[in-house]
């Protein structure tokens, strides 16, 4: 399944996405693709908080700041590339707002390719849970560069939602399903 999780800052969307991943994986291998570059003390602290949240949940972390379709190149995953569908890993990709920023503003970025990168990544997964971010309702006018970034993230969210089996907005830890349903995820749990 492809699952898109969105929500505002501090909504509990990461925790919910982790919960879904753990359920979908059961005892199988789980990967966490981290897209956030550790800038400064605040960034480092944010990452530590996410680390602590994942602690003990059995995720193997891959740091991939751009081009997420290549995330598995970094790990020894003969098994990933040739695995049968039900042996492929369950993956949590977090989060699209960082990924798109890295693709838009960092050297070597390919912002036009983010959607196809995500789809290519999904082909290598049994289930892919993607966390994105609600940054579209502050009513502020930004410079062209920032507006381009927001436009791209909005379009990416819309494109991925179209492909996704489930789209859930997490509102202060309450999941609101815009597409699919939690029951659909339950039907896909490992035996």
């Amino acid at each position, binding site marked *: 399944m492809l699952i898109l999780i969105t929500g*505002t800052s501090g909504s509990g969307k990461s925790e919910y996405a982790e919960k879904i991943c753990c359920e979908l994986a059961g005892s199988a291998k789980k990967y966490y693709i981290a897209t956030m570059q550790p800038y400064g003390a605040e960034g480092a602290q944010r990452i530590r908080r996410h680390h602590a949240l994942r602690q003990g949940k059995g995720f193997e972390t891959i740091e991939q700041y751009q081009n997420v379709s290549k995330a598995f190149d970094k790990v020894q995953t003969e098994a990933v590339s040739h695995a049968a569908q039900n042996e492929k890993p369950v993956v949590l990709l977090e989060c699209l707002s960082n990924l798109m920023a890295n693709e838009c503003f960092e050297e070597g970025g390919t912002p036009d390719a983010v959607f196809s990168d995500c789809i290519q990544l999904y082909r290598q997964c049994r289930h892919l849970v993607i966390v994105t971010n609600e940054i579209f*309702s502050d*009513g502020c006018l930004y410079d062209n560069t920032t507006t381009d970034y927001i436009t791209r*993230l*909005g379009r990416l969210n819309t494109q991925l*939602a179209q492909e996704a089996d489930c789209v859930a907005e997490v509102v202060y830890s309450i999941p609101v399903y*815009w597409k699919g349903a939690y029951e659909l995820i339950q039907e896909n749990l490992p035996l």
Partner: protein
Amino acid sequence: MEVYFGGAFQGKLDYVLKKKGNLRVADGKDCDEKQLQSADIVNHLHLLIQRRIAVGESTDTLIEELYAVNPQMILICDEVGSGIVPLERKDRIYRESVGRVLCAAVAKSDRVERILCGIGQCLKQESVGITK
């Protein structure tokens, strides 16, 4: 009247056009009065509100005016109220007005949907729920 709102860049106009077919769209960003009055759809309603406020006009009766012209009018608007309260008085009035105008639009509408990631959620209609 119908109203569709949501965050910026969520595919709202595409969603409405796909659902309703090819209708006459006036863009709140730059439409004139004539285009506005003959439109089936007013897109970027928030920008129309912003333009009116910029020239010192009130938007208190905007929805009544549009409804009087065309009670079937479809309005599409960004939600703009989630950020920090702006420093500039004009910006504060703008944000507040978008909220008030949407309240008035919702009151007049027999269908209200909120769009997120290109998906509509019906907030007002006989049956409430996610729409296909």
